[in-house]
Protein backbone atom coordinates (compact mmCIF):
# COMPACT_ATOMS: atom_id res chain seq x y z
CA UNK A 1 0.00 0.00 0.00
CA UNK A 2 2.74 2.32 1.01
CA UNK A 3 4.75 1.35 -2.06
CA UNK A 4 1.79 2.04 -4.34
CA UNK A 5 1.19 5.42 -2.75
CA UNK A 6 4.91 6.24 -2.98
CA UNK A 7 5.24 5.40 -6.65
CA UNK A 8 2.06 7.25 -7.63
CA UNK A 9 3.28 10.28 -5.71
CA UNK A 10 6.70 10.02 -7.36
CA UNK A 11 5.27 9.73 -10.86
CA UNK A 12 2.97 12.70 -10.33
CA UNK A 13 5.78 14.89 -9.02
CA UNK A 14 8.06 13.74 -11.84
CA UNK A 15 5.48 14.61 -14.49
CA UNK A 16 4.88 18.01 -12.88
CA UNK A 17 8.61 18.81 -12.66
CA UNK A 18 9.38 17.54 -16.16
CA UNK A 19 6.51 19.14 -18.03
CA UNK A 20 6.71 22.30 -15.96
CA UNK A 21 10.39 22.74 -16.74
CA UNK A 22 9.76 22.11 -20.44
CA UNK A 23 6.92 24.62 -20.54
CA UNK A 24 8.99 27.23 -18.70
CA UNK A 25 12.08 26.87 -20.90
CA UNK A 26 10.13 26.90 -24.17
CA UNK A 27 7.88 29.85 -23.36
CA UNK A 28 10.82 31.92 -22.09
CA UNK A 29 12.82 31.16 -25.24
CA UNK A 30 15.84 29.84 -23.37
CA UNK A 31 18.83 28.82 -25.48
CA UNK A 32 22.58 28.47 -25.02
CA UNK A 33 25.31 30.74 -26.33
CA UNK A 34 23.58 34.08 -25.74
CA UNK A 35 25.41 37.25 -26.80
CA UNK A 36 24.18 40.21 -24.77
CA UNK A 37 25.06 43.83 -25.59
CA UNK A 38 23.23 46.36 -23.43
CA UNK A 39 19.53 45.52 -23.50
CA UNK A 40 19.98 43.41 -26.65
CA UNK A 41 20.46 39.65 -26.71
CA UNK A 42 21.17 37.41 -29.69
CA UNK A 43 21.63 33.67 -30.05
CA UNK A 44 23.97 33.38 -33.05
CA UNK A 45 24.05 29.58 -33.01
CA UNK A 46 20.28 29.35 -33.35
CA UNK A 47 20.73 30.32 -37.00
CA UNK A 48 23.02 27.41 -37.78
CA UNK A 49 23.16 23.62 -37.74
CA UNK A 50 24.76 23.93 -34.26
CA UNK A 51 21.43 25.04 -32.81
CA UNK A 52 20.85 23.59 -29.32
CA UNK A 53 17.85 21.38 -28.44
CA UNK A 54 16.10 24.13 -26.48
CA UNK A 55 16.20 26.63 -29.35
CA UNK A 56 15.17 23.85 -31.74
CA UNK A 57 12.12 23.06 -29.60
CA UNK A 58 11.26 26.75 -29.25
CA UNK A 59 11.25 27.49 -32.98
CA UNK A 60 9.27 24.30 -33.65
CA UNK A 61 6.66 25.48 -31.16
CA UNK A 62 6.42 29.10 -32.33
CA UNK A 63 6.67 28.28 -36.05
CA UNK A 64 9.26 30.95 -36.83
CA UNK A 65 12.26 30.66 -39.14
CA UNK A 66 15.42 31.87 -37.36
CA UNK A 67 17.76 34.33 -39.07
CA UNK A 68 20.42 32.22 -40.78
CA UNK A 69 23.96 32.59 -39.48
CA UNK A 70 25.44 33.26 -42.93
CA UNK A 71 22.71 35.78 -43.52
CA UNK A 72 22.83 37.91 -40.39
CA UNK A 73 22.10 38.09 -36.70
CA UNK A 74 18.97 39.04 -34.77
CA UNK A 75 19.10 40.89 -31.43
CA UNK A 76 16.03 40.85 -29.18
CA UNK A 77 15.11 43.41 -26.51
CA UNK A 78 12.25 43.29 -24.01
CA UNK A 79 13.39 46.08 -21.68
CA UNK A 80 15.36 49.32 -21.75
CA UNK A 81 18.97 49.54 -20.54
CA UNK A 82 17.87 49.90 -16.91
CA UNK A 83 15.46 46.98 -17.01
CA UNK A 84 12.12 48.79 -17.47
CA UNK A 85 9.85 46.47 -19.43
CA UNK A 86 8.65 47.73 -22.81
CA UNK A 87 5.17 49.13 -22.25
CA UNK A 88 3.43 50.47 -25.35
CA UNK A 89 1.82 53.26 -23.33
CA UNK A 90 5.23 54.72 -22.47
CA UNK A 91 7.80 56.51 -24.61
CA UNK A 92 11.21 54.95 -25.20
CA UNK A 93 14.15 56.49 -26.98
CA UNK A 94 16.61 54.37 -28.94
CA UNK A 95 19.77 56.17 -29.89
CA UNK A 96 23.34 55.68 -30.95
CA UNK A 97 25.02 53.51 -33.52
CA UNK A 98 25.02 49.95 -34.73
CA UNK A 99 27.84 47.51 -35.37
CA UNK A 100 29.07 47.51 -38.97
CA UNK A 101 26.65 45.69 -41.23
CA UNK A 102 25.69 45.96 -44.87
CA UNK A 103 22.20 46.92 -43.77
CA UNK A 104 19.92 46.45 -40.79
CA UNK A 105 16.26 46.51 -39.88
CA UNK A 106 14.54 47.19 -36.55
CA UNK A 107 11.01 45.88 -36.05
CA UNK A 108 8.44 46.21 -33.26
CA UNK A 109 6.46 43.07 -32.40
CA UNK A 110 4.09 41.80 -29.75
CA UNK A 111 5.85 39.29 -27.43
CA UNK A 112 4.39 36.54 -29.68
CA UNK A 113 6.09 37.99 -32.76
CA UNK A 114 3.08 39.61 -34.38
CA UNK A 115 3.06 43.06 -35.94
CA UNK A 116 1.20 45.85 -34.18
CA UNK A 117 -1.62 47.74 -35.90
CA UNK A 118 -1.09 51.50 -36.23
CA UNK A 119 -2.38 54.43 -38.25
CA UNK A 120 0.70 55.00 -40.42
CA UNK A 121 1.32 51.29 -41.10
CA UNK A 122 4.88 51.47 -39.82
CA UNK A 123 6.38 48.44 -38.10
CA UNK A 124 10.06 49.36 -38.17
CA UNK A 125 12.92 51.06 -39.98
CA UNK A 126 15.70 49.97 -42.29
CA UNK A 127 19.23 51.39 -42.21
CA UNK A 128 18.55 53.00 -45.59
CA UNK A 129 15.49 55.02 -44.65
CA UNK A 130 16.28 56.17 -41.10
CA UNK A 131 16.94 59.88 -40.56
CA UNK A 132 20.41 60.50 -39.07
CA UNK A 133 22.17 63.53 -37.69
CA UNK A 134 25.43 64.88 -39.14
CA UNK A 135 27.74 62.36 -37.46
CA UNK A 136 25.68 59.37 -38.55
CA UNK A 137 23.93 58.74 -35.25
CA UNK A 138 20.20 58.32 -35.08
CA UNK A 139 17.38 58.53 -32.53
CA UNK A 140 14.16 56.58 -32.75
CA UNK A 141 11.15 57.54 -30.62
CA UNK A 142 9.12 54.45 -29.75
CA UNK A 143 5.86 55.97 -28.58
CA UNK A 144 2.09 55.57 -28.76
CA UNK A 145 1.51 59.08 -30.14
CA UNK A 146 3.04 60.74 -33.20
CA UNK A 147 6.49 62.32 -32.87
CA UNK A 148 8.64 64.25 -35.25
CA UNK A 149 11.65 62.45 -36.67
CA UNK A 150 11.92 58.67 -36.55
CA UNK A 151 8.66 57.63 -34.88
CA UNK A 152 8.01 53.94 -34.31
CA UNK A 153 4.38 53.58 -33.15
CA UNK A 154 3.58 51.14 -30.33
CA UNK A 155 -0.17 51.10 -30.92
CA UNK A 156 -0.55 51.58 -27.17
CA UNK A 157 -0.27 47.83 -26.46
CA UNK A 158 0.62 46.65 -22.98
CA UNK A 159 3.81 44.80 -23.90
CA UNK A 160 6.02 44.91 -26.96
CA UNK A 161 9.48 43.81 -28.00
CA UNK A 162 12.06 44.97 -30.52
CA UNK A 163 14.14 42.88 -32.91
CA UNK A 164 17.28 44.39 -34.45
CA UNK A 165 18.52 42.39 -37.42
CA UNK A 166 21.99 43.04 -38.81
CA UNK A 167 22.56 41.53 -42.24
CA UNK A 168 25.90 40.58 -43.73
CA UNK A 169 27.85 41.42 -40.59
CA UNK A 170 30.92 40.17 -38.76
CA UNK A 171 29.04 40.18 -35.45
CA UNK A 172 28.30 36.60 -34.47
CA UNK A 173 29.55 33.57 -32.59
CA UNK A 174 33.05 35.01 -32.23
CA UNK A 175 31.85 38.31 -30.78
CA UNK A 176 32.51 38.60 -27.06
CA UNK A 177 32.12 42.18 -25.95
CA UNK A 178 30.15 45.30 -26.62
CA UNK A 179 33.36 47.01 -27.83
CA UNK A 180 33.22 45.01 -31.04
CA UNK A 181 29.58 45.79 -31.58
CA UNK A 182 28.07 48.91 -30.01
CA UNK A 183 24.30 48.43 -29.99
CA UNK A 184 21.95 51.41 -29.63
CA UNK A 185 21.05 52.57 -26.12
CA UNK A 186 17.43 52.34 -24.98
CA UNK A 187 15.99 54.73 -22.41
CA UNK A 188 12.48 55.14 -21.02
CA UNK A 189 11.44 58.78 -21.34
CA UNK A 190 8.09 58.75 -19.60
CA UNK A 191 4.71 57.12 -19.35
Amino acid sequence: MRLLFGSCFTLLIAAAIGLGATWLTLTRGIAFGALTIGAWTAWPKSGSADIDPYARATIARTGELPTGMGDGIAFYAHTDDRGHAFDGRCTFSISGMTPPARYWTVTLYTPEGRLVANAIDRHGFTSEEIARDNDGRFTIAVAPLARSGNWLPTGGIEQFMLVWRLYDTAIGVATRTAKEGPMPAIERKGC
Partner: protein
Amino acid sequence: MVRGLLWILAAILLGGIVHLSTVLAMPRAAKQDAYSRLASLTPVNTMVPLAQPQTGAEIMPFMDPAFATAVCRYDLTGGSLKLTAPVSQAYTSVFYTRRSVAYYAINDRAAGRRTIELDLMTAAQHAQVPEDEEVTAADRLIIESPTTMGLIVLRALAPEPGLMSMARRTLAAATCGIQAAQ
Protein backbone atom coordinates in the same frame (compact mmCIF):
# COMPACT_ATOMS: atom_id res chain seq x y z
CA MET B 1 11.96 9.98 6.71
CA VAL B 2 14.85 8.61 4.66
CA ARG B 3 12.38 6.67 2.56
CA GLY B 4 10.40 9.86 1.85
CA LEU B 5 13.57 11.63 0.73
CA LEU B 6 14.38 8.76 -1.58
CA TRP B 7 10.96 9.02 -3.17
CA ILE B 8 11.49 12.74 -3.73
CA LEU B 9 14.95 12.14 -5.19
CA ALA B 10 13.47 9.57 -7.56
CA ALA B 11 10.76 12.06 -8.54
CA ILE B 12 13.34 14.74 -9.36
CA LEU B 13 15.45 12.36 -11.44
CA LEU B 14 12.42 11.10 -13.31
CA GLY B 15 11.24 14.68 -13.78
CA GLY B 16 14.58 15.52 -15.39
CA ILE B 17 14.17 12.63 -17.81
CA VAL B 18 10.62 13.72 -18.65
CA HIS B 19 11.87 17.29 -19.23
CA LEU B 20 14.74 16.31 -21.53
CA SER B 21 12.70 13.85 -23.55
CA THR B 22 9.84 16.30 -24.10
CA VAL B 23 12.30 19.00 -25.24
CA LEU B 24 13.92 16.57 -27.67
CA ALA B 25 10.57 15.31 -28.93
CA MET B 26 9.10 18.78 -29.47
CA PRO B 27 10.42 19.40 -33.03
CA ARG B 28 8.80 16.15 -34.20
CA ALA B 29 5.57 16.70 -32.32
CA ALA B 30 5.06 20.35 -33.32
CA LYS B 31 2.06 20.76 -35.61
CA GLN B 32 2.53 24.47 -36.27
CA ASP B 33 6.19 24.66 -37.28
CA ALA B 34 7.22 26.77 -40.28
CA TYR B 35 7.12 23.89 -42.77
CA SER B 36 3.61 22.85 -41.68
CA ARG B 37 2.38 26.44 -41.86
CA LEU B 38 3.72 26.76 -45.41
CA ALA B 39 2.53 23.31 -46.53
CA SER B 40 -1.05 24.47 -46.96
CA LEU B 41 -0.02 27.70 -48.75
CA THR B 42 2.67 26.56 -51.14
CA PRO B 43 2.85 23.78 -53.75
CA VAL B 44 5.89 21.52 -53.44
CA ASN B 45 9.08 22.19 -55.48
CA THR B 46 7.84 25.51 -56.81
CA MET B 47 8.98 29.04 -55.97
CA VAL B 48 6.01 30.92 -54.52
CA PRO B 49 5.92 34.54 -53.35
CA LEU B 50 4.57 34.97 -49.81
CA ALA B 51 2.08 37.66 -48.86
CA GLN B 52 3.65 40.54 -46.92
CA PRO B 53 3.13 40.11 -43.18
CA GLN B 54 0.26 42.26 -41.99
CA THR B 55 -1.20 42.83 -38.56
CA GLY B 56 -3.29 39.80 -37.70
CA ALA B 57 -2.41 37.94 -40.90
CA GLU B 58 1.18 36.78 -40.48
CA ILE B 59 2.07 33.39 -41.90
CA MET B 60 4.85 32.96 -39.35
CA PRO B 61 5.81 34.96 -36.25
CA PHE B 62 8.83 37.29 -36.38
CA MET B 63 8.77 37.83 -40.15
CA ASP B 64 10.80 40.88 -41.19
CA PRO B 65 8.31 43.22 -42.89
CA ALA B 66 11.11 45.11 -44.68
CA PHE B 67 11.69 42.13 -46.98
CA ALA B 68 9.78 40.61 -49.87
CA THR B 69 9.80 36.84 -49.38
CA ALA B 70 9.45 33.84 -51.68
CA VAL B 71 9.59 30.21 -50.59
CA CYS B 72 10.47 26.97 -52.33
CA ARG B 73 9.13 24.10 -50.23
CA TYR B 74 11.16 21.18 -51.47
CA ASP B 75 10.94 17.42 -51.42
CA LEU B 76 13.97 15.68 -52.93
CA THR B 77 12.37 12.21 -53.08
CA GLY B 78 12.01 12.43 -56.87
CA GLY B 79 15.49 13.80 -57.61
CA SER B 80 17.75 16.78 -57.02
CA LEU B 81 16.47 20.33 -57.14
CA LYS B 82 17.76 23.21 -59.26
CA LEU B 83 17.52 26.72 -57.88
CA THR B 84 17.95 29.64 -60.27
CA ALA B 85 17.74 33.16 -58.94
CA PRO B 86 18.80 36.32 -60.76
CA VAL B 87 20.82 38.39 -58.32
CA SER B 88 19.52 41.81 -57.48
CA GLN B 89 20.69 44.32 -54.95
CA ALA B 90 20.36 43.25 -51.29
CA TYR B 91 19.19 39.77 -51.83
CA THR B 92 19.61 36.64 -49.75
CA SER B 93 18.60 33.02 -49.64
CA VAL B 94 18.59 30.78 -46.57
CA PHE B 95 18.10 27.02 -46.59
CA TYR B 96 16.17 25.33 -43.76
CA THR B 97 15.66 21.66 -42.94
CA ARG B 98 12.22 20.15 -42.43
CA ARG B 99 12.62 21.11 -38.73
CA SER B 100 13.44 24.79 -39.38
CA VAL B 101 17.21 24.48 -38.82
CA ALA B 102 19.11 26.94 -41.03
CA TYR B 103 21.94 24.97 -42.64
CA TYR B 104 23.08 27.17 -45.51
CA ALA B 105 22.84 30.75 -46.67
CA ILE B 106 24.05 32.56 -49.76
CA ASN B 107 23.57 36.22 -50.68
CA ASP B 108 24.22 38.28 -53.77
CA ARG B 109 27.75 39.18 -52.63
CA ALA B 110 28.76 35.61 -51.91
CA ALA B 111 27.31 34.49 -55.23
CA GLY B 112 29.57 36.95 -57.01
CA ARG B 113 27.78 36.79 -60.35
CA ARG B 114 24.54 37.77 -61.95
CA THR B 115 22.62 34.58 -61.22
CA ILE B 116 22.68 32.16 -58.30
CA GLU B 117 22.47 28.70 -59.76
CA LEU B 118 22.80 25.68 -57.55
CA ASP B 119 21.82 22.05 -57.22
CA LEU B 120 20.31 20.88 -53.96
CA MET B 121 20.49 17.18 -53.24
CA THR B 122 20.55 14.65 -50.43
CA ALA B 123 23.85 13.06 -49.42
CA ALA B 124 22.79 9.83 -51.21
CA GLN B 125 22.05 11.72 -54.44
CA HIS B 126 25.37 13.57 -54.18
CA ALA B 127 27.20 10.26 -53.89
CA GLN B 128 25.66 9.19 -57.20
CA VAL B 129 26.89 12.22 -59.14
CA PRO B 130 29.63 10.93 -61.49
CA GLU B 131 32.96 12.27 -60.34
CA ASP B 132 34.14 13.51 -63.72
CA GLU B 133 30.94 15.47 -64.11
CA GLU B 134 31.60 17.27 -60.90
CA VAL B 135 35.09 18.15 -62.05
CA THR B 136 34.11 19.41 -65.50
CA ALA B 137 31.40 21.53 -63.97
CA ALA B 138 33.75 23.26 -61.60
CA ASP B 139 31.50 26.24 -61.22
CA ARG B 140 28.52 24.06 -60.52
CA LEU B 141 27.49 24.66 -56.94
CA ILE B 142 26.18 21.58 -55.15
CA ILE B 143 24.54 21.87 -51.74
CA GLU B 144 23.67 18.86 -49.63
CA SER B 145 20.39 18.97 -47.75
CA PRO B 146 20.49 17.18 -44.37
CA THR B 147 16.80 16.27 -44.76
CA THR B 148 14.81 15.11 -47.79
CA MET B 149 12.29 17.89 -47.24
CA GLY B 150 12.90 21.50 -46.33
CA LEU B 151 12.55 25.15 -47.26
CA ILE B 152 14.51 27.60 -49.39
CA VAL B 153 13.60 31.13 -48.38
CA LEU B 154 14.52 33.93 -50.78
CA ARG B 155 14.32 37.50 -49.57
CA ALA B 156 14.87 40.89 -51.16
CA LEU B 157 15.16 44.06 -49.08
CA ALA B 158 12.86 46.98 -49.73
CA PRO B 159 15.03 49.83 -48.34
CA GLU B 160 11.84 51.85 -47.84
CA PRO B 161 8.16 50.85 -48.06
CA GLY B 162 7.76 52.53 -51.47
CA LEU B 163 10.28 50.11 -52.99
CA MET B 164 8.45 46.95 -51.88
CA SER B 165 6.82 46.28 -55.24
CA MET B 166 10.25 46.44 -56.89
CA ALA B 167 11.65 43.98 -54.35
CA ARG B 168 8.76 41.62 -55.02
CA ARG B 169 9.34 41.84 -58.77
CA THR B 170 12.99 40.83 -58.44
CA LEU B 171 11.95 37.68 -56.59
CA ALA B 172 9.38 36.76 -59.22
CA ALA B 173 12.15 35.73 -61.63
CA ALA B 174 13.53 33.04 -59.30
CA THR B 175 12.62 29.42 -59.99
CA CYS B 176 13.15 26.04 -58.41
CA GLY B 177 12.28 22.59 -59.71
CA ILE B 178 13.17 18.92 -59.67
CA GLN B 179 15.67 17.85 -62.31
CA ALA B 180 14.99 14.67 -64.28
CA ALA B 181 17.11 11.77 -63.09
CA GLN B 182 20.23 11.33 -65.22
